[in-house]
């Protein structure tokens, strides 16, 4: 495990605070103060934290040793975070916070912190773990801290009163049901967290909530479930074996995090390579510069409008990046880089050639299928192929400098051809995506 995240988050925080206006906010009159969801979230977290701090200062810290151990764990988890862009960047911190919220005993002795103390410790440890990152000049991640504080507060509110009053002992006893109850609570918390996450990114990006929520839930299955399980195990193991269990149980989660990080790194590299492969057509003079990238971005936006899931969007993006690969095997491109509108025959040939090349690249099979079907009439195509077809022609029309130039007239051109070439639903989604990006203004 590395002590310091290797990848400095050089890229600006994704969909950061620069673009929230692009969303529904624009419709709101400017004179009112913006009460967007992130502001609400942060306010709620700050209020909860303030109350918790005040409470803890008045009551004093119960079981300071346990609080210190968990605080250290959460802080180091935060310190080991990798890049703010990722959904759950610090699973260890999250698991530690949840475990502390669900802690009832330490080594067989009572040791449960109150709700206020849980929130206070999580907040303090989160701040302490984030401080080195901020000192190193990286972006702070207020969203994650707020989410963490709220989630820990939620879990603690559900558990601590029940436990300290003894009600829980009556309900579940001290056996396996207790473990199951903890697990249930954690799942509930994780669902709430996913909802918060989806709402946050909806207000940041303006994308529809449904697919975003589905995306968050899907992410729960991976590192999210490891996180929940670790939280539960941590609480139980500390209850049984004392604080010594903490470092032992951290290890699997750290391994998961490490694997996850490498996976993300290789995925990023993979994407870069595919982009390069796509750029090869541009350098070879088969397509205008930037065409593949533009088509990929716009296809992704359109696919999102159509409600595609994340794997579907990845397939769409890869296929869009490589949709012109087949042109590489054309004998000689027209000088000037613009191959122009192709005949149906040529289109089919490029598609089939492209599919053959794509099959060699090791991307999922679906990508090759999509590329292969690009030349067919839309009724025979899978949905991603329809999207790429429309976006491809849109980009050619809009940037090609042909008779119709400019996005509006290009879109009009597509709408006119919805009878057989483009699917109306896709064209409308494209129009919405363009409007969202402000490209039509």
């Amino acid at each position, binding site marked *: 495990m590395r002590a310091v995240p290797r990848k400095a988050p050089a890229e600006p925080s994704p969909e950061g605070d620069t673009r929230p206006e692009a969303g529904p906010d624009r419709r709101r009159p400017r004179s009112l103060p913006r009460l967007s969801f992130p502001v609400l979230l942060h306010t709620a977290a700050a209020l909860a934290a303030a109350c918790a701090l005040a409470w803890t200062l008045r009551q004093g810290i119960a079981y300071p040793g346990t609080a210190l151990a968990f605080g250290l764990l959460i802080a180091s988890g935060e310190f080991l975070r990798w890049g703010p862009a990722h959904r759950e960047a610090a699973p260890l911190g999250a698991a530690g916070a949840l475990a502390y919220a669900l802690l009832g005993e330490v080594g067989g002795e009572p040791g449960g912190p109150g709700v206020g103390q849980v929130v206070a410790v999580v907040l303090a440890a989160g701040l302490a773990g984030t401080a080195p990152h901020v000192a190193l000049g990286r972006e702070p991640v207020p969203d994650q801290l707020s989410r963490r504080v709220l989630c820990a507060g939620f879990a603690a509110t559900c558990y601590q009163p029940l436990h300290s009053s003894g009600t829980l002992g009556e309900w579940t006893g*001290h*056996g*396996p049901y207790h*473990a*199951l109850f903890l*697990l249930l609570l954690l799942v509930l918390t994780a669902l709430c967290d996913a909802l918060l996450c989806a709402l946050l990114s909806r207000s940041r990006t303006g994308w529809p909530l449904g697919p975003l929520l589905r995306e968050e839930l899907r992410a729960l*299955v*991976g*590192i999210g479930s*490891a996180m929940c*399980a*670790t939280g*539960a*195990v941590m609480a*139980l*193991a500390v209850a*049984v*074996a*004392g604080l*010594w*269990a903490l470092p*032992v*149980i951290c290890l*699997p*989660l750290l*391994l*998961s995090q*490490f*694997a996850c990080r*490498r*996976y993300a790194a290789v*995925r*990023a*590299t*993979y994407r*870069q*390579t595919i*982009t*390069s*492969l796509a750029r*090869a057509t541009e*350098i*070879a003079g088969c397509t205008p510069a930037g065409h593949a990238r533009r088509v990929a971005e716009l296809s992704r936006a359109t696919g999102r409008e159509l409600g595609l899931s994340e*794997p579907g969007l990845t397939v769409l993006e890869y296929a869009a990046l490589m949709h012109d690969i087949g042109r*590489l*095997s054309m*004998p*000689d491109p027209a000088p000037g880089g613009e191959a122009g509108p192709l005949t149906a*025959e040529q289109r089919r*040939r490029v598609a*089939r*050639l492209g599919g*053959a*090349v*794509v*099959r*060699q*690249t*090791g*991307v999922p099979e679906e990508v090759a299928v999509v590329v292969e079907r690009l030349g067919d009439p839309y009724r025979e195509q899978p949905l991603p192929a329809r999207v790429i077809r429309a976006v491809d022609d849109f980009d050619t029309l809009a940037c090609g400098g042909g008779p119709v130039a400019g996005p509006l007239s290009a879109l009009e051109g597509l709408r006119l051809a919805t009878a057989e070439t483009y699917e109306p639903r896709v064209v409308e989604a494209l129009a919405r995506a363009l409007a969202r990006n402000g490209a039509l203004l």
Partner: protein
Amino acid sequence: MRVVPPGACAYILCAVLAAGLCAAPAVRPDAGTPWAAVALLAFLYAVCEQLTRCPLMGHRAPADMGSFVPVLLAGTFLLSPSAAALVAVPGALAGRVGRRPAWPRRVWHAAQLALSAFAAGHVFRALAPGGGGRPVEAADFPYALLPAVAGALAFCCVLGLLECGVLVTAERMPAGTACAGLPRTVAPYLAHGLAGLLMSVLWLSPYGPVAALLVLLPMYISCWMYAQYHRERTAHRSTIRALVQAVDIKDRYTRGHGERVGRASALIAGELGMADDRLEAVRFAGLLHDIGKLGVPTRLLRKDGPLTPEERRVIELHPEYGHEIVRGIAFLEEARAAILHHHERLDGSGYPYGLSGHRIPEFARVVAVADAFDAMTSNRSYRRARPVEAAVTELRRCAGTQFDPRMVRALARAIDRHGWHPAVTADMPPRPPAAPDPGREAPEEPGREATAGPGRDPGPQPSSSGPHPSSRKSGAHPSSRHPGPQPSSRGSGPQSGWKPGPPAVPDRSPDLSPDLSPDFSPDLSPDLSPDFSPDRSPDLSPDLSPGLSADRSPDRSPDSGRPSAPDCGPPSAQESAPDSAPSPAPPSVPESVPDPVPESVPEAGPATPGRHSGPEPARGAVIPRGRGRRPAGASSEDGHR
């Protein structure tokens, strides 16, 4: 391998007997084995093994996740060693086996795991706090870590040693190689050991096995992530190869060149003692060094005659194009410099920047040597490959002026040590299996088959493995499709046509050669050029004789100029086809291309370089005259020099 060698049989039998002896005490009636726990753990383990088969949210869990060790280790910490040995058996017997024969593998796997668990259990007992008589409690926690770690280590060692044994007996692998990977497997087992300890503690706690089960989830997720990571990395590699193959589409004379240069570069880098990650980078640099040819018009890469200075300049842009293409790939940082500078010469007369001496990046110097070496030792349409020794001699001669002598020495040493087996690209996974081929070969029509000279293919690449699927259709030159004779003749030195010619006038050479065979190191051309001529002329001569291909194999013909027969034959057929009509369906070549996919063929089929038929009738028309296109260009260029 379908048949288990007798040695391996005996070995497996011994292991099974030993495992049976280990487990025997547990099944004695008075042993007091907690059968419920054993059954539960065994069931858990079997489920974990089977889990690799079920899809998980759209991502199919990969097959190579390995055994799920924490359950077994928890068993060794919870049960007596003999009972722990039983835990693994059902799961291993029901598990998935990748290769045949399945049952010996399953039985072996069960015995191996049982023995390892038995050993780990004994180690744990020997060190455990209460002498192993009582379960681990909260009070002995810090100390309890020690026996757990030791048990996991013992498990790992026994497992690894047994594995080595079976590799040696069954696969005839040298013992050193078999055990080489052993130390690297230790770290995961330590993590597994700690997880197993935690599991056993929770198992015995009031929360019971349910809580213990939760420990497995993070472990499972992390294994799953690792497997995903490996899968993605493999996919990434094949994408890189797809980039390289995109070049092969355009310049079919150099098929496989990139992979071989990558291999040679890695050999050099290994000899220079580079670290693993740099070695990987240099391999990629070699692999991708000619990627910029994508930006060079195909017309120039395949041009028949001599190139004009402008055309030459365009071709010389390819390092810069390549640099541009891979610019977006972050991990190729250092390799990018090599791609940009691999045509620089040590004396500063190379391109694009004319760097000299040590201002040329180290990687670029490595790749330059590897590039030249492969250009010399592989078959080209216009000449036969040189033997490896001759190529090395040639490189040595040019060291200091063109190449870094250090790299040349490293390459020579590496070849002495490992040999040079261009047909085997062991470090690369085999090309994506035949899957793409059938689809892409299908649309080929016989006519184009006949014209497409398969022998243009430089031969000894892994790509053209075995008889080409389309050869059955063409029927024109079935034998010439096989790359078979070529690799074998590679090192045997039948290159009678080659003689270490006097260094030719090196003045303008660096500029000239790349256009002849752009991959071909320009630096060598002055020295090589005189040697080409003897090869080339015979290369052309047989073009007119139609029936060459039939008895191509004994191409060590008395005609000293014919060493390159396997290459030249098919092209000869190709070129002579419209003239003398020796092949079944030549006339239909250029026009009758009803299938809209004629062009897919070249990049698809490893051995279908001829792509003149389809959309370019003009080109097709040129074919008859264009025999020995490259060679013609080469000869004229060289001759003029």
